[in-house]
């Protein structure tokens, strides 16, 4: 399943082809093909250590790929790194800022680097985020540091915003507030956003499309709506005997209850129901599934597949 459909290369803000990165013998990212359409929000979802940050660091040029290609806004970053950085904003989970600067000085300093800097927008965001301009960065709370990074990234009107675990370390209230700020900002202006997180709820709230990553591989990319319509849970009574599930298409996970069995199925359809019917399953109930369940079961299934290899 993918989100390519009938788009041209120029329609993508981010395009990677067989992107990989090795650290010695450890392969952190393996053959990633990822396409992010312009004007959409793409959520990169994976557990800690799955390879999200490594992919993002390659996209923004902090790491070099061991193999594969990257195109940002239709260009290879190494062709025009300065031009790309004018059009792309990156907010890392570590929120790199100059600690000794005040909020106001940080704005003034960053402004000098960006011709597209929008003073009015910066002032609006400063007000909306309630950031005190005279306060030193080192005195800011984690939440305010994250807001300042977002403010600096948005004030020069980038076409592509890359957010690497931007809510990491924030408490739930600040996290939610931060996500709402992102949503309100990007929904107005049709920017492209790549947002990485291990928190499914965040991705679900913000993203149009999602990529699930595990052990450096993209397991799945699609729109959230398509994923949800394609993945289902199927529940049925077992009456003491559990059916043989080998050969049933798309079964990702099986949960056994005392009197019932629940399957998580990928690519659900009539074929699945027919296969279950042929194994003596009667009256199966097809249930919707949460993105979290899809994420957990997809990752588990991949791990089991690897363990069995």
């Amino acid at each position: 399943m993918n989100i390519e459909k009938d788009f041209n290369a120029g329609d993508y803000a981010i395009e990677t082809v067989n992107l990989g990165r090795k650290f010695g013998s450890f392969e952190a990212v393996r053959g990633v093909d990822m396409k992010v359409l312009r004007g959409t929000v793409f959520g990169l979802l994976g557990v800690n250590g799955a390879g999200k940050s490594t992919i993002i660091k390659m996209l923004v040029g902090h790491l070099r790929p061991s193999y594969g290609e990257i195109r940002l806004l239709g260009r290879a970053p190494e062709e025009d790194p300065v031009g790309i950085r004018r059009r792309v904003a990156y907010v890392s989970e570590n929120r790199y800022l100059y600690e000794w600067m005040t909020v106001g000085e940080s704005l003034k300093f960053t402004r000098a680097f960006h011709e597209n800097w929008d003073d009015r927008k910066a002032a609006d965001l400063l007000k909306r985020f309630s950031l005190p301009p005279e306060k030193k960065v080192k005195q800011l709370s984690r939440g305010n540091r994250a807001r300042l990074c977002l403010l600096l990234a948005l004030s020069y009107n980038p076409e592509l915003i890359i957010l690497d675990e931007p809510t990491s370390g924030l408490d739930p209230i600040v996290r939610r507030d931060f996500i709402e700020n992102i949503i309100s900002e990007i929904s107005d202006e049709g920017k492209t956003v790549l947002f990485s997180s291990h928190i499914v709820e965040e991705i679900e709230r913000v993203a149009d499309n999602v990529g699930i990553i595990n052990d450096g591989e993209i397991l799945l990319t699609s729109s959230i709506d398509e994923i949800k319509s394609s993945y289902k849970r199927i529940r049925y009574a077992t009456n003491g005997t559990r059916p043989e599930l080998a050969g049933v298409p798309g079964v990702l996970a099986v949960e056994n209850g005392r009197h019932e069995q629940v399957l998580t199925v990928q690519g659900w359809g009539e074929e699945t129901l027919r296969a279950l019917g042929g194994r003596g399953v009667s009256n199966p109930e097809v249930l919707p599934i949460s993105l979290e369940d899809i994420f957990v079961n997809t990752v588990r299934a991949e791990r089991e597949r690897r363990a069995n290899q």
Partner: protein
Amino acid sequence: MTGAMLKAMLWKEWRETRLKWLAFALAFHIPLAIAGLFLALQESVRFDVRVMTDGYAAYVLAGALVLQSGFLITAGLFLLSFFAVGSVGAELDNRSIFFLFDRPVRRWQVLLFKFVVGAVQTTTCVGLSILTTVTLVYVALAAMSSGVTLDGSWTGFVNVISNAMRGTVWTMAIALMVYSATFLFSVLFEKWWIAVIAGAVSLVLMFYNLGGKFFEWVISSATSKPSSEELNLEVYGRLDPVPLLVMLVVATGFYLASQYVFERKEMR
């Protein structure tokens, strides 16, 4: 890099390093301060004005110059390595350099800017310390002994000042070379303290072991004396362009090596 970017970067460097460089300049005047206190406080160094001759005054001045430059290229170099590392190493260590990497400016421009700013600060501090040393010692001597006047010792004064000017150029060139070497270490090692240790060890090797021959050649070129002869107070008698150029080339080599490493540096 636009004018606005340059201005912003200069402002940032100034704000980050102003206190460090003030401390650096003060540290480089420590021998002068000690000598000044010694002369001011010790009764035993008072002398009869009739004993003070132009020759004696010139000898004291040249001695002060040699002492100060000796201090600069020994103890001062350790300070220099510490401050050179602070130019880019500290930003690599605390990762604040990511902030600049994400701006629309090329990496080599960031490094060139930092190198030039640090080199100017280094050579200015070192150079000024030599000039102020001789000037202040001269003034002190003149004040201490009414038998010596600028009129009466004009030749000696000119001689010492011109030696000091040449000494300043020599010491600045050496300082620039040391700064460039340590700058390379600060780019190589992300932990600033590893760079300082590596820089200090390499400087010791450079000056007292591996590079000893090179510096003997530099000094013998400066004094027009065979290297085997004992150094005298005419240590800065000439400005031979060849060793100066060689030192500039060595410094440029270290800088280019820094650029090579920096351009390929990955930030994990």
